[in-house]
């Protein structure tokens, strides 16, 4: 009997981990907590990755669904009610045993619990609450817990859950309300944004309570995150990062995750997969596999929004709606603002340094520290971690450029495009991106003229 039960847990784990794998969020960061000598578990501020799956994504949390027995019929989802897939539901006790068993062996950093909608949203949320409660109170688990707030659930249950978990997230699913209506008929933008706003307000309230009351309970201390599916609907990159920016500003989210759409269902509404063509001169890309490069560019832009002080409409605009697939968003921005370069490393302030391609948060901080003592040269900043391969076109040290180079868009672009960066199949990066070189333009022609004149004289 016992062995039969164990078999069941194994099979359930397979079904429910498989169903949860498209959820991107894996971070275990944002909260520092000690076990204080009892129970099991702690949490570190930076989070810990415990393993990496065959796709290179980190495995930090035991990422499972409570149940994939969903009553909704979202077009993009493998677990929609109209699909014929094996269904399973964990009991709260099973989830606790798995979590503790894995945690003791240092396999995982904690639990990530999502769920399909069983019966209705409130019932599902209650199941999640019961599980988390059991884990925290009975098993005295002090590790990281991330749960989904199920849109449409009773706000009271969401609030009660919030006091037990470290992070809550509520997936936006698709960047615009129209797409959502098209692909997820049971969800509306309103029902998704409502719990998000509720969590945000409660977090602020909880922080304010901490000022007068030292031991006020912490509400979702690691903040909330969300996720958008990229490439299932025809939104442009500009629309997507504008949405992300407003989520950061208006809902004070910790993270927005982007998930390259992987077709798990055949459906006519999804057949209109947009082909990404970032530049007019680039032929339409053949759609092979999930749009991973696009996802990568969006993450790069996301970092620029959060850590580099960029605004969404600096990176893209109505005119240029998608990211350049050859260049990262920062290089792309720098090339369009060459008038602001070159920047003197020894004088520019921190935020200006951050705008230089090849200079990151760490190296900018190191530069600011080190230049208090002596003037920095190219060798010094290279040792501090500046990627000179990209930065050299945009900086001066002690008033000098590294090489005598032209500050010219085409010239720099040709040199910047990294041949090693993996580009989608069907595109070669042999340099001629912005403009085809021809015999009759550029400086060669005028230079020859000049020579002729000299000869004549």
């Amino acid at each position, binding site marked *: 009997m016992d062995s039969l039960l164990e078999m069941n847990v194994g099979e359930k*784990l397979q079904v429910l981990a498989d169903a949860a794998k498209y959820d991107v969020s894996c971070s275990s960061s944002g909260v520092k907590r000690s076990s204080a000598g009892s129970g099991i578990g702690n949490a570190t501020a930076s989070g810990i990755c415990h393993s990496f799956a065959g796709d290179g994504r980190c495995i930090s949390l035991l990422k499972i669904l409570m149940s994939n027995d969903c009553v909704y019929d979202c077009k993009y989802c493998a677990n929609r009610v109209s699909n014929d897939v094996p269904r399973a539901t964990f009991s709260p006790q099973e989830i606790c045993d798995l979590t503790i068993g894995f945690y003791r062996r240092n396999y995982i950093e904690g639990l990530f619990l999502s769920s399909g909608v069983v019966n209705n949203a409130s019932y599902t949320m209650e199941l999640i609450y019961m599980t988390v409660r059991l884990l925290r109170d009975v098993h005295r688990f002090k590790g990281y817990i991330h749960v989904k707030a199920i849109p449409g659930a009773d706000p009271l249950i969401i609030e009660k859950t919030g006091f037990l978990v470290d992070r809550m997230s509520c997936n936006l699913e698709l960047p615009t309300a129209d797409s959502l209506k098209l692909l997820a008929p049971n969800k509306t933008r309103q029902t998704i944004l409502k719990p998000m706003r509720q969590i945000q307000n409660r977090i602020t309230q909880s922080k304010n309570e901490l000022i007068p009351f030292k031991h006020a309970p912490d509400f979702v201390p690691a903040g909330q995150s969300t996720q958008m599916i990229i490439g299932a609907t025809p939104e442009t990159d500009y629309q997507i990062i504008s949405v992300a920016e407003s989520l950061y500003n208006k809902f004070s989210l910790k993270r927005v995750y982007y998930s390259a759409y992987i077709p798990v269902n055949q459906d006519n509404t999804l057949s209109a997969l947009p082909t990404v063509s970032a530049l007019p001169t680039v032929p339409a890309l053949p759609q092979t596999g*999930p749009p991973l490069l696009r996802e990568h560019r969006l993450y790069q832009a996301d970092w620029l929004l959060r850590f580099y002080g960029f605004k969404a409409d600096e990176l893209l605009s109505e005119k240029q709606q998608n990211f350049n697939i050859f260049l990262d968003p920062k290089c792309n921005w720098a090339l369009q603002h060459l008038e602001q370069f070159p920047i003197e490393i020894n004088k520019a302030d921190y935020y200006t340094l951050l705008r230089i391609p090849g200079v990151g948060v760490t190296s900018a901080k190191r530069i600011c520290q080190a230049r208090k003592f002596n003037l920095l040269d190219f060798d010094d900043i290279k040792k501090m971690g500046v990627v000179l391969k990209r930065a050299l076109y945009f900086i001066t040290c002690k008033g000098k450029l590294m090489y005598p180079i032209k500050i010219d868009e085409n010239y720099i672009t040709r040199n910047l495009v990294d041949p090693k960066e993996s580009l989608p199949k069907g595109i070669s990066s042999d340099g001629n991106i912005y403009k085809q070189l021809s015999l009759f333009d550029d400086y060669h022609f005028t230079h020859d003229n000049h020579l002729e004149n000299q000869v004549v004289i």
Partner: protein
Amino acid sequence: MKTRKIFICEDSFEGILTGVFEAYICRYGHDFISLELNGESQPQFFCEYYPVAADIEKATKVGQAIRNKISFDAYEMLHEASLANQTEKAEAIYRFLVLGFKIGPQVISHLSDPYILSVMKLSKAVTRELQRLEGFVRFRELDNGIMFSKLAPKHNQLVLLAPHFADRFPEENWMIYDEHRKIACIHKAGRGWGMVSNIEIEKELANQVSEEEELYLKLWKSFTKTITIEERRNARLQMNMMPKMYWKNMPEVE
């Protein structure tokens, strides 16, 4: 010209600090002194070699001086650097301290000085591996209930790993064994942890796992396999994030 004096210190934080102590106390001039690690040095002409035995009292004095005259951050950084698997660390730490005792706490940001930079890089290399190991350590439950883990890290990490796991599993009996350095860190439930050196673990003893162990191992392997999205398979990325040198002690990627 003066002949160069070279102090040969033991490969430990105390050993190097004792070396620094001797280098200061002999008042020979910092320009004519260097520090080298025991067994790592190539003998040179026109040098005098002085072996220095680690002395806790002398090392503590230097340690206190670092915390008082430079800063606690610097002390931590030097400690981390001293655990690195690199032969020139003793000299780098010595030069760091020479400058540090001269100019005080701001020495830490003097990154254009090669020795300061190398101490910083060493400490970064150690903490970076430490962060990885906090995730990559795998315990297995032996049939006597002890959680056992075997490691082969590049740098000497156990002293830094122990506090993390002591906080994480305060009610467990656990043990982490460094098979390269033959040292182990042992934690007793509710009683804190300690280090043991020069020990050999019998393979058979470490392989007598509990009944539950097989089950959880199987579940864990199936979980890591299931969570992979086949359409995104990227072995290179996986290897970058989780270098192969750690794989042999991680059951899910065997």
